[in-house]
Every structure is written in structure tokens, then in C-alpha cells.
């Protein structure tokens, strides 16, 4: 119990003091997981809309695969990504293993199915007559898609939160493809594992508190946007 209290106190000391090492690790976590989430939005939202609005052969199967992907184990993604990125692997020529980009790739693979699956569900949940009505009013295809996205903005922001939450908190993939290299690929979760392994429990708890604070701040921003959207409905 003492450890949790002293660790929490230590966390706020580190944050208030702006400890350079903690700031660096926190910044890297935010950047890597933020970019991975953005990439997953860029691909996941269109894919989710496609699955929600179009009928094509294999659609249910694809949706099933994506929904399974929402629970992809990070270590499996990390292992597969490592093997692909090895020097002797098919993507070895890119020289990406043990770089922040490798973590982005692995985290993208984790977040994209979450975003795509939740987007599909959000769009499908809209009243199908809306599309017909918009088309009847002479809206272009792009205008219809924008309107649908707008109508589904609350669950879509929930998808953003879920996607970001799944990657900022994962450790298995970051450890395997990033390698936990100090000043380079050490993110909050892998640093926490290392400090625990070293027996520095107070530092480990401090890093956990920093991670939770960071996730809270990011989620709070998105939630505020979401709730403002809800009020203006």
C-alpha cells in the first residue's frame, strides 16, 4: 500500500518537475500511439463505411474477421510484425525493426480493426431511410457520406477513444518490435515493465500513474468534443 501512495506522489513530482526522461518517454508514447490511431482512422473509417453501406460477396466474412481483429493479442501482432521486419524477413530491407516506426506499424494493426468494426456498427445503426431521403433531396454521394459521418459522430468518437486506448496501453507488441531501447523506443508501458523487472516498484507505479494521466487527458479532450457534439444535436 505504501508503495502505491509513494509511487503516486513520486509520479506527480516527476510530472510537476518536468523530469526530462519521463517527459521524453511520455512524449514518445503519445506520438507513437497518436500516429497509429490517426492512421487507423484514415483507413478504418472508410473501410467501416464500406462494410456498412455496400453489399458484396464475402462481406460478412470480412466483417467477422475485422470484429475478431478487435481482440487481436498484442504479442501475436508483435511476433508476426517482428518476423516480417527482421533483416532476413520479407520487409527486412526497410530496416525498421527496433524503431518507433515499427511500433506505429504494430499498433496500427491493433487499432485499425477496432476503428473499422466500430465505424461499421455506428453507420449501420443509423436509420436507413436517411440515405434515401438525402439522395431524394439531391445530395451528392460525398455529401451523403459526410452527413452519415456527422450523424454517427458520437459512436465514431467512441471508436477513436477505443482505438487510442487499445494502443497506448499495450505492451507486448511495443516490447517485441520496439525493443525498449532507451531514448528511442522506450514507451511508458515498456518502461513500466522494465522498472518492475528491476525491482524499482515506486518508479514503475509513477510511470503507471503518468500513463493513466496521459490517457485520461487525451480521452477527456475527445470526450469533451463528443459531448459538445451531443448537446448541439
Amino acid at each position, binding site marked *: 500500500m505504501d508503495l502505491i501512495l509513494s509511487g503516486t506522489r513520486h509520479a506527480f513530482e516527476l510530472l510537476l518537475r518536468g523530469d*526530462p526522461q519521463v*517527459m*521524453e518517454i511520455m*512524449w*514518445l508514447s*503519445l*506520438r507513437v500511439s*497518436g*500516429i497509429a490511431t*490517426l492512421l487507423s482512422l484514415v483507413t478504418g473509417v472508410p473501410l467501416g463505411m464500406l462494410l456498412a453501406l455496400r453489399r458484396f460477396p464475402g462481406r460478412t466474412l470480412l466483417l467477422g474477421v475485422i470484429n475478431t481483429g478487435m481482440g487481436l493479442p498484442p504479442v501475436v501482432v508483435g511476433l508476426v510484425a517482428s518476423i516480417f521486419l*527482421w*533483416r*532476413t524477413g520479407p520487409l*527486412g530491407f526497410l530496416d525498421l*525493426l*527496433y524503431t518507433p516506426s515499427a511500433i506505429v506499424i504494430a499498433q496500427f494493426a491493433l487499432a485499425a480493426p477496432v476503428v473499422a468494426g466500430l465505424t461499421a456498427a455506428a453507420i449501420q445503426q443509423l436509420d436507413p431511410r436517411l440515405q434515401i431521403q438525402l439522395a431524394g433531396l439531391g445530395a451528392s454521394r460525398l455529401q451523403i457520406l*459526410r452527413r452519415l*459521418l*456527422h450523424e454517427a*459522430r458520437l459512436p465514431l468518437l467512441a471508436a477513436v477513444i477505443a482505438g487510442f486506448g487499445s494502443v497506448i496501453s499495450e505492451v507486448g507488441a511495443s516490447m517485441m518490435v520496439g*525493443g*525498449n*531501447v*532507451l*531514448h*528511442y*523506443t522506450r514507451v511508458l508501458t515498456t518502461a513500466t515493465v*522494465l522498472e*518492475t*523487472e*528491476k*525491482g524499482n*516498484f515506486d518508479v514503475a507505479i509513477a510511470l503507471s500513474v503518468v500513463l493513466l494521466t496521459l490517457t485520461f487527458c487525451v480521452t477527456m479532450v475527445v470526450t469533451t*468534443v463528443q459531448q*459538445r*457534439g451531443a448537446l*448541439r444535436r
Partner: protein
Amino acid sequence: MTNFPRPALAVACLVLLGAPAPVHAPARTNRDVILATTTSTQDTGLLDSLVPRFEHTCGCRVKTIAVGTGRALALAARGEADVALVHAPALEERYVAQGKFVGRRLVMTNDFVVLGPKADPAGLKHAKQVEDAFRALAEGKAPFASRADSSGTHLLELTLWKQAGIEPKGPWYLEVGQGMGATLRIASQKEAYTLSDRGTFLAQRSTLDLDVVFQGAPDLLNIYHVMLPNPDSFPKVNIPGGRAFADFLVAPETQAFIGTFGTTRFGEPLFKPAANRREEDLRRRAA
């Protein structure tokens, strides 16, 4: 928020994420060096002290991948690392014989210790030989936590069971499959015995409820070697970088630093420098 997603917001996010991170590091002109190593070199804090010194002189970044020696060797033997710092002599010799590694050199030593609960229910303190100690463990009066992760420590543990003529099995034998630090904590919490390198134990002693119950046998010598993947087999390996790191480890100044590392924090050095020594001599002296 009528036109969500607001492009301005998205652009702002991208600019923020794309901005360079506030990392203060020396200029890096040379290729990264990937160091495959065992957890004990990282968990004791030794590499945290050594690596920055090397990075300053080489103008490169060292990517330390600290995993068990088994995995470190497997990675480096595929050319996925540029240099290996490991502690499983028998396994290393096998790889060298297969032509996977070259330039194997002694770096440092410390020793393994058998740890257990202070009360020592299996009575290991009375054991004369390491075989007696392991036979006493197998009587199962207390649990034994095995690394079970193909690390150097685990491989030695398996050798010691074999020497004692025992196949460890049963509810007392806990195969935890984790690094040394985690295994020490499990042993401490479960009042179990375990085998550890002295360095990791000393570095974490204050958080553990474990005592040294057996030590000092020649078989318990812990020897760290550095070696390089065979450049003929792996054209993609950063040979000059790996060799520079290996040379750095055995250089007199580094060796002197290794010999004092940990003294201020733990009261005694965690490793003994051993560059240019011979393994046989070290074992004979330990006997």
C-alpha cells in the same frame, strides 16, 4: 461541430505529432548497433552506464535488446543482431562450432547463488557440493522457482539437475518462464528456492525476502562472453559497429569501470572484469 472532423483540428494534431521529440542525444552519423544480451546486464543497470559511454565515442546508437541468453543467441545466430553479450558458455561453444559466431572473448564474471527462504527448510546450508544442494531441493520440502525460459541461468540450472541425477518434476517445481527479476520476486513471495546470478540478486536484495543458502562451487561461476555474428553468413550485419562495441567491452578503461560498478550502491562490485583471461584458469581458481 457541424463539419466534423474539423480539418484544422486534424492538421493541428498532425503538426503536434510530427514535431521532433525533445530528445537530447549526441550526433549520430554511424549505423545503429543492435546488441542482443541477457536480462542481467540490463536489470543490474550495468548497460545503462556502459552504453552511453560507447555511444559518445562511436557516434552511433546502441539498440539493446535484453532478453534471455537463449533468445539473444537465437536472434544473433540469425544475423538479427550485430553483437551478443551472453552467459551460457556451453551453448555459445555449440554455436561457434556451427560457424554462427566469431571473435568470442571473455568480458566479465560473477557467480550464481542458490537463494531460499531465511528459514532454509530444505537445509541447503549444510550441503557440501552443489549436487547435494540440488538433491536436497528435489526432496520437495520447499518449492523451487525455475526461470524455464532458456536463459543462461536456466540452462545452468538444467545442467546442475542433470549432474545431481535428478529430473525436476512435481508440484514443488515451479516453471515461471520469466526474467530473473520476476523470478526472484515469485520465489520471495512463495517462499521458494531459486538460482540467480549474484548481480541481479544484489541489485534487488532490498525488495526480496531471500537469503543466499548455497554458493562458492566452481560450477556456479557465471561467465559473460561477447561475440560477433559470422560476417560471411550475414551480409546485412553491422560488423564494424558490433566489433567496435566488443572492443569497447574489453578495453582497459571499460574493464576498470566494470570492476567498480555497483560498489557505491550495493557495497560490493556486481561483476569482476575478465578480459584476456582464460576460462579454464577462472574455473580452476574458483575450484
